[in-house]
């Protein structure tokens, strides 16, 4: 539900970068969104389509690269994959997990004219 605020942050970063690099238009925006982050990609796409209007990114395509979740398992003493928060270690079944990757939300790059 906070995807609107996130989309506004994205468009701020994108428009400022476009202005600094003297771009006429933004063709595409590449985001990296972790599978464990609190973002619903479809809601973010919808919000992005709203906030991009009337600016240099009005015609921009949104590309979302999903990054996998990972956690450090205290019992196994190693990094394991984690599909969802609240899941157990796929190897030992323990919940003693510390998320190490997959909660990132980044603007990676933009393609401009």
């Amino acid at each position, binding site marked *: 539900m906070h995807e609107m605020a996130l989309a506004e*942050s994205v468009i701020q970063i994108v428009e400022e970068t476009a202005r600094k690099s003297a771009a006429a238009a933004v063709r595409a925006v590449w985001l990296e969104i972790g599978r464990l982050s609190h973002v619903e990609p479809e809601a973010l796409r919808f919000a992005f389509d709203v906030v991009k209007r009337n600016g240099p990114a009005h015609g921009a395509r949104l590309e979302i690269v999903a990054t996998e979740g990972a956690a450090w398992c205290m019992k196994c003493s190693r990094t394991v994959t984690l599909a969802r928060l609240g899941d157990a270690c796929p190897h030992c079944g323990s919940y003693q997990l510390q998320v190490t990757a997959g909660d990132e939300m980044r603007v990676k790059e933009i393609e401009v004219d």
Partner: protein
Amino acid sequence: MCTTCGCGQSDTRIEGVHVHEHVHADGTVHRHSHDHADPHGHGHDHGHHDHGHEDLHYGRGPAGAHAPGMSQARMVQIEQDILGKNDALAAANRKRFAALGIFAVNLVSSPGSGKTTLLVRTIEALKGRRDIVVIEGDQESSFDADRIRATGAPALQINTGKGCHLDAEMVGKAVERLAPPAGSVLMIENVGNLVCPAGFDLGEAHKVVVLSVTEGEDKPLKYPDMFRRSSVMLLNKVDLLPYVEFDVAQCIEYARRVNPDIRVIEVSATKGQGMSEWFGWIEYGAQTAAAARGESVDAMKARLAELESQVAALKSMLP
């Protein structure tokens, strides 16, 4: 607007003052209030990691998915956290709290868990021992801030309008107005919502999630982000346990699945059960924050004394 609740950011008000968003001719979006005495002004306070990698990479396609080739297109690397601006403002809030030895707590929950009643009882119990200052976040109305003010504690209402969470900028502005005294406790009651406030750091020392036994015990698994980011889970309304189907042990087990370190305190804000443990947790946090400030003040005093003696020594060498 949001697909689910229609939330946007443009209707934010802090105690009746509108916080507006303007799109400038150059495309930048500014969000600011009409309070122009605001020292944050219209500045773009970006994070330390911002703009560090704005190198231009011509003709390099991302992940080999496409190549600009014949067109004028080029790739501009950004590598910025989407919430970088909020995080930078939260860091500024945190620095301000540390400088004043303020213990800031971000109270989160779904609507109706009893956050405001809990706050009222906490203020009444700690009255005379500890200054408590409150920021209330709600979409509309000042009912909650009015309830807090009735206890005698300073409170400021932030109306987020269509927004579904507080952000660091709103809290920074509210703190400027409230000016909480050194060594006080700042309670930030976030918008009742177990989803959106999870991602927005306000500069608090801890998030405390309130869950009442009239809700489901599976909420920690339904809304794992919030429980993962909270230091404490207050299980409220435990006086109602005889009348509701709520498995306390199961709930705690679910909460520990998403956050093995979460501390659980079972309370009844209305009947007082378990509240002394909660007050103890606040008092410990407040003392720790005040002591950390004391240490830094002592360190500064020692450094000042050292510099003064050096100045005196240098002066004595002058003809």
